[in-house]
């Protein structure tokens, strides 16, 4: 390479020579002379040569332009990642280069901005969840749930974890991967076919002195609320198990918080809080708990507010680091190091903009939109919506058994009309028959929903 490289200042030939002279070696390759030749000669890269910014921009933009986003087509997908409005102010804040290009705030004195933003994030998540403490993020809901099960087991030395039947497949499989090495067995509790509530007899049959924790979701994967979540928690506590709730943070602007329902640990997906879906990553794992005993077992980074030594100013720093891998090594509460800090800053900015009123209004808007969608879809012959008699939020199941069509057929036909239908549920929950999970947020207009209904109507007529 003759020319210098734009990101590598010392690639300029003159500079390179000068530095080599200082070190006292003749050429850069001499600095690699300790690598065995057998490795060196087999390590050349078979990759294309470097390209200019102009060429790369064109190439990547061209590839990305082949995607159809949820702005190009009307989509009713949810089930773990949801399209919500991201205020422009949030995008602006998370674009600040001082935030983006910083590392983990190991040097608190010059990282006060990130630390304060994360402290505010922890405070807001604790508020939403109705819990005492929140950490400063995990990877996503699925891994947060895996960590919650392991944490429960560390706290009470038990090894059975009770989960609801209706749970998102990725969440279940991640939970299995996290639990298996810790020797935690996952036990499914039945949910009522008509209302979706935990079947109390089944819960009582399965809970025992081995049960480390009982997990429910509010709302559930299929969008309905557990009618008496408190009761489930009481049963868990009677048996000395921890009660863990997974929640959609948006719903908490209106609906009961995990803390109010008696949870010891709360988890959830923070992507809806001002973060784009980004094809499923990065996401934002929410994790909160209560009580000092649980706090000491909490995974992930925690930021605390303190003072400077001279007492002149408030200041923020990482706390309880003795739980973490860089100090405790194999005895750490988790291996997590890099987390989703910038997404957490986005969530803090989002929640600041929304405030309690904004979040409540957003919940009501989503409820109104999804209620409208349910009402309109009910007009269709043979379509059952929702499959469960319960209060729903944002998501609801749509049954096609009465139409003689499969859910995947409906989706294929919808795609031809520029609509992405809901998630087909048949593979995971056979008992639900041909059905799909639809998600409606504040981004869906009445026109979008009317178009969906008209399209399904036309598909039904084609039978």
């Amino acid at each position: 390479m003759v020319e210098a490289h734009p990101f590598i200042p010392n690639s300029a030939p003159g500079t390179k020579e000068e530095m080599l002279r200082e070190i006292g070696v003749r050429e850069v390759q001499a600095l690699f002379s300790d690598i065995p030749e057998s490795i060196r000669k087999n390590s050349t890269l078979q990759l294309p040569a470097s390209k200019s910014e102009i060429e790369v921009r064109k190439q990547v933009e061209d590839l990305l332009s082949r995607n159809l986003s949820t702005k190009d087509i009307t989509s009713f997908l949810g089930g773990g990642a949801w399209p919500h409005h991201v205020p422009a102010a949030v995008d602006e804040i998370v674009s600040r280069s001082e935030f983006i290009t910083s590392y983990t705030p190991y040097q608190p004195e010059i990282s006060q901005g990130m630390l304060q933003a994360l402290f505010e994030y922890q405070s807001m998540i604790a508020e939403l969840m109705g819990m005492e403490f929140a950490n400063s993020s995990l990877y996503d809901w699925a891994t947060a749930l895996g960590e919650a099960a392991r944490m429960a087991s560390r706290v009470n030395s038990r090894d059975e974890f009770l989960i609801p039947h209706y749970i998102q497949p990725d969440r279940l499989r991640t939970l299995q991967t996290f639990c298996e090495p810790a020797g935690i067995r996952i036990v499914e509790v039945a949910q009522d076919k008509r209302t979706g509530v935990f079947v109390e007899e089944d819960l009582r049959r399965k809970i025992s002195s081995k049960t480390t924790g009982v997990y429910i979701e509010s709302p559930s994967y299929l969008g309905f609320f557990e009618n008496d979540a408190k009761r489930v928690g009481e049963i868990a506590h009677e048996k000395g198990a921890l009660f863990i709730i997974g929640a959609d943070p948006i719903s908490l602007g209106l609906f009961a918080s995990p803390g109010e329902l008696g949870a010891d640990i709360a988890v959830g997906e923070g992507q809806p809080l001002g973060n784009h879906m980004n094809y499923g990553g990065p996401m934002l794992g929410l994790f909160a708990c209560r009580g000092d005993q649980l706090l000491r077992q909490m995974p992930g980074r925690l930021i605390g507010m303190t003072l400077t030594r001279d007492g002149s100013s408030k200041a923020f720093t990482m706390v309880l680091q003795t739980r973490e891998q860089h100090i405790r090594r194999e005895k750490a509460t988790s291996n997590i190091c890099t987390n989703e800090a910038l997404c957490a800053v986005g969530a803090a900015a989002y929640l600041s903009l929304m405030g309690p009123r904004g979040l409540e209004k957003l919940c009501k808007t989503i409820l109104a939109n999804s209620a409208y969608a349910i009402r309109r879809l009910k007009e269709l012959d043979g379509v059952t919506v929702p499959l469960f008699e319960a209060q729903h939020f944002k998501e609801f199941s749509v049954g096609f058994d009465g139409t003689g069509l499969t859910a995947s057929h409906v989706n294929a036909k919808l795609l031809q009309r520029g609509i992405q239908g809901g998630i087909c549920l048949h593979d995971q929950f056979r008992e639900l028959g041909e059905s799909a999970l639809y998600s409606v947020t504040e981004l869906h207009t009445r026109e979008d929903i009317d178009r969906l209904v008209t399209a399904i109507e036309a598909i039904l007529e084609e039978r």
Partner: protein
Amino acid sequence: MMTFRQAHWDEPLIIERSSEGRVGFSLPSLEAPVDIPRALLRNRPPRLPEVSETEVIRHYLRLSQENYGVDSGIYPLGSCTMKYNPKLLDRLTATHKIQDLHPLQDNGSVQGILRILYELSESLAEIVGLNKVSLQPAAGAHGEFAGATIMRAYHRENGDEEKRDELIVPDSAHGTNPASAAMAGFKVVEIPSNSTGCVDIGALRSSLSPRTAGLMLTNPNTLGIFEADIVEIAEVVHEAGGLLYYDGANLNAMLGKAKPGRMGFDIVHINIHKTFATPHGGGGPGSGPIAVTKELERFLPVPTVERDGDRYYLDFDRPSSIGKIRSFWGNAAILVRAYAYILMMGRDGLEEVADISVLNANYLAKKLSQIRGLELPFPDKLRKHEFVLSAAKMAHETGVTAAHLSKRLLDFGIHPPTVYFPLIIKEAMMIEPTETVSKQEMDEAVNAFSKASDEAYSNPERLKDAPRNAAVTRIDEARASHPRTMELTWRRMTERQ
């Protein structure tokens, strides 16, 4: 010498800016009110701030000004590879064509992103010299967990799972290695380094047994020294029936020079946010793909990204897979950036990265080791991407420790090195300049170290109340973590007041 003064706004918490009735949002007008059963409703609204958009922007802009990033200046934090993040990468991903993609969309509508992910997997496999990649891990430690879980699955398939329950980790390893090994169900066996800072082959041999599942190693090691015996290390571990795991945190200097696959490693994780120049976001999001040999391919997490002619798809039909380690497919927004970075750099640019990162480290090591009170352990060894200085002499002679020195560097606008790691060096300062700093910036850093050293020997007390030019002065860490004074949320704080 550069002067530096970080902004200090004394910015209140956003909740302290709250004023009833203010809003920072607008939503379409609500058409139909909905009745919700009372039992499902929240009793107490969350205590969130009521502030306008203007206030939110000013608040977080001020906070950003109290934060130091790679764009602010030199950031030689050892093992973190804080290189410059090309701005094109952030521009490319600021589009609805990635931001507004739902992970479960129909295959036909996501061909562009799937092709990017597929081609990135291929490039990463080529770079590390292994067969197949999973892009799913969200971070390096997450990749380690996935990799260690693959080891378990491999030994299980051989009927060895019960027996092979030990994972060997050197005492100089990153803390995530033993933590991930333990999380994946292994007992951690720590082996000491030898007198040259490398793996003690004798100690390794004597720790190997039929219980050995494998060895986790980073090469170059955390001292920045290449493990020259790596071929032999790989042989003895493999002979004992174990697998070799490569911690990719130190991959930067190996690009085009020494592929981990050629060194004999079976599983590798790659810290995209280090080697491949994606921003670290104040702690994340990162991305930690793993690559494996042909023999281990079938264990990779589901799904993998595959190609069939011109069509790209996600393959869920992988019966031997360890399953899922997270929701969906990986940190796509980060991975697209890495794809663009690799395209821009090409094979020549990536080799230049290795060359100059090593040139810079050796240059800086030479200069800094000439400063009074600082020593470079194992001075005869070449360094790769990083090196570790010991301030033990200075601490002994003046009472000024590596921690004091670090805090003083802040006053000169220099992000300090990683301190007190690796644990095998006393008063360790681990320094990784990366390829993206200029000679002038390094010379300024040398001046700053030198001035701090002069102060240590002339007026050590003065140095101990550094920093003075950062947003805040030295922080009371003990108060921060003390049960009686610890404040983790604003609710606890106001309840105590």
